[in-house]
């Protein structure tokens, strides 16, 4: 049996996905990025192969994607997240026409045609509005763990609105809300609403072919509150894949697998 390793060196976390010849995921791991991307990737590659008891000789190819993709010195190939997202999305279901990926540093909306080809993509402007970083910073100022944001927001009973999409300004607005005695749950819902509005802007810009399913990828898709808000803004329930945070790494691995299959023997 041979395997392919996909590494998504993101701005906050590095994700590893190992697939077999059928494209099935046989192992995965996620670690905080750390300062040395290459060293961190190597170390965690070792750990993953040891845990899975796989001889590295059986690994037929390594591919990197994500913001730090070029720093993974032992990768055989690099691709951008746009291509990786498209491949993974299409492998989940060919009905996907849009993929929304909210990453630590940027958010992307990719539109696909019926054969899975990228027809357009849009990324957020170069600031942290509408990204995972926005949630990370603002949740810290509320003293709430990122993983608790979703469940808490579902208990909101009042609509508040944040006037700023800027992380820094939003943080001070949150402090004012807290000082005014607003419930955390309502403030969190307002945060989700702000991000969803940003994503909606990108969604309208990414010229979609026709209506199809919308896939919500990236770690933020684990947040049920965000899923609910985004679905309500888009008037359509977004589909959250299993392990949404590993979608880019999976797409990269599938890209390399497809490429190797096409190679003349």
């Amino acid at each position, binding site marked *: 049996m041979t395997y392919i390793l996909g590494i998504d060196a993101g701005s906050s976390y590095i994700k590893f996905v190992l697939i077999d010849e059928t494209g099935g995921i046989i192992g995965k791991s996620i670690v905080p990025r750390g300062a040395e991307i290459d060293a961190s990737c190597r170390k965690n590659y070792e750990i993953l192969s040891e845990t899975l008891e796989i001889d590295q000789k059986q690994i037929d190819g390594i591919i990197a994607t994500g913001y730090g993709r070029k720093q993974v010195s032992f990768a055989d190939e690099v*691709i*951008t997240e746009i291509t990786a997202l498209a491949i993974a999305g299409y492998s989940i279901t060919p009905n996907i026409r849009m993929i929304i990926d909210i990453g630590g540093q940027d958010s992307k909306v990719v539109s696909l045609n019926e054969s899975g*080809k*990228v*027809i*357009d*993509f*849009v990324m957020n402007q170069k600031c942290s509005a509408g990204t995972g970083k926005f949630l990370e910073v603002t949740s810290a100022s509320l003293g709430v763990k990122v993983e608790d944001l979703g469940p808490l927001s579902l208990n909101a009973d009042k609509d508040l609105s944040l006037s700023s999409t800027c992380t820094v300004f939003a943080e001070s607005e949150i402090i004012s809300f807290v000082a005014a005695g607003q419930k955390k749950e309502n403030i969190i819902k307002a945060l989700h609403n702000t991000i969803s509005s940003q994503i909606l802007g990108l969604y309208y*810009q990414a010229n979609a072919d026709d209506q199809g399913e919308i896939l919500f990828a990236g770690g933020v898709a684990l947040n049920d509150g965000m899923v609910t808000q985004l679905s309500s803004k888009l008037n359509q329930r977004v589909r959250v894949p299993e392990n949404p945070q590993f979608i880019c790494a999976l797409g990269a691995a599938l890209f390399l697998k497809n490429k190797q299959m096409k190679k003349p023997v």
Partner: protein
Amino acid sequence: MKLESSKTILTKLFTEYYLTGTQAKKEGKPIAFITAFAPVEILRAMGVFCMYPESYAVVCAASKKASEMIHASRMSSFTQDLCSYSLIDFGTEHYERLPYGGLPDPDMLIATNNQCGTTLLWFKLLSKKKNIPLFIIDYPAAADDRPALRQYIRRQHESLVEFVQQQTSNPIDDQILSEQIANSKKTCQTWKNIHELNKQSPIRLSANKLINALFPIVAAKGTKSACDYYEALLHENQPSPENESKGATRLLWHGYPMWFLAKKFPGCFDTDFQIVLDDYTLWWDLDYSSGADPMEAMTKAYSSTYLNWPLNQKLDWVESLVDEYAIGGVICHANRSCRRALADIVPLRKRLSKRNIPSIIVESDMANPDFYSKEQVRLRIESFRETLRAS
């Protein structure tokens, strides 16, 4: 007689422009600061030396001084959200190491609204601050087929003549005016012909070279030297007979270049992809074709600038470039500075998408490097290349 090379003429034009400005000031000759699409021909025909603060801002950006100058503009409490050309100009007051020692103080200001509203406010401020007389020309959009509007513009041009005469006591020299218009017309035509060389593959002049050839049409349009420069450039770049296609995907850059970059565009293209055209350089190809009367020619030329066109006309034009230059993908520069230019990007992408022409948006600024994130731009362009490759 050996013809001068385009390079020699360009160097001369450039140095002369800055030296003449300083010299004119010393000799007490009238100097005007004018916006990019002001009817320079009238001013020259009245003995006024014209300088373009926008073009100077480009020089400052290309010599890597923009960031410091923009920071210096803060000393006059300007918000950093303004157009960076204006901020660079406002920064000159508080900055010492100015390229060419800075521009001489003008005796009059001429501003037009055929590109944006920013220039009007910018020049109004200059006028107020330095107590310099200002003349504003209003160019309504789509004036071409409306005689009343054409008449309105013509009357403003005539008032400009009166204004300059009041300031300088110089009458207008009709002979010089006609020559200037003839030169402008020729310059624009040759500039267009030079671009058209790139309809073939391989292209003759990269988009970067075209950017570097822009100065004469911006700052010396109407002069014989500008005509000679473009004639020489065209002559030096005649299509070679073996013009077989090299198969690279031909890209259009939509909007302003990035003046602070050595190559004016982000350098993340490999040999499979080539920017064959930046439509910005063609914004300067004004249409002087309406009639033999110089005033009439200027009415059309200056009212129908790209930024003054109605949205659909802009989109039709870019679409026609996509067809004529066999463009396979479009990179739209969302230039933070220029609201006018930003407005057409989203509708343009929708149009292109309907025709299956892939496009992307790259966010930055034409002159302020603080708004340029190399990695983010690289990621977008690399993703675009992958998308084009897969399609």
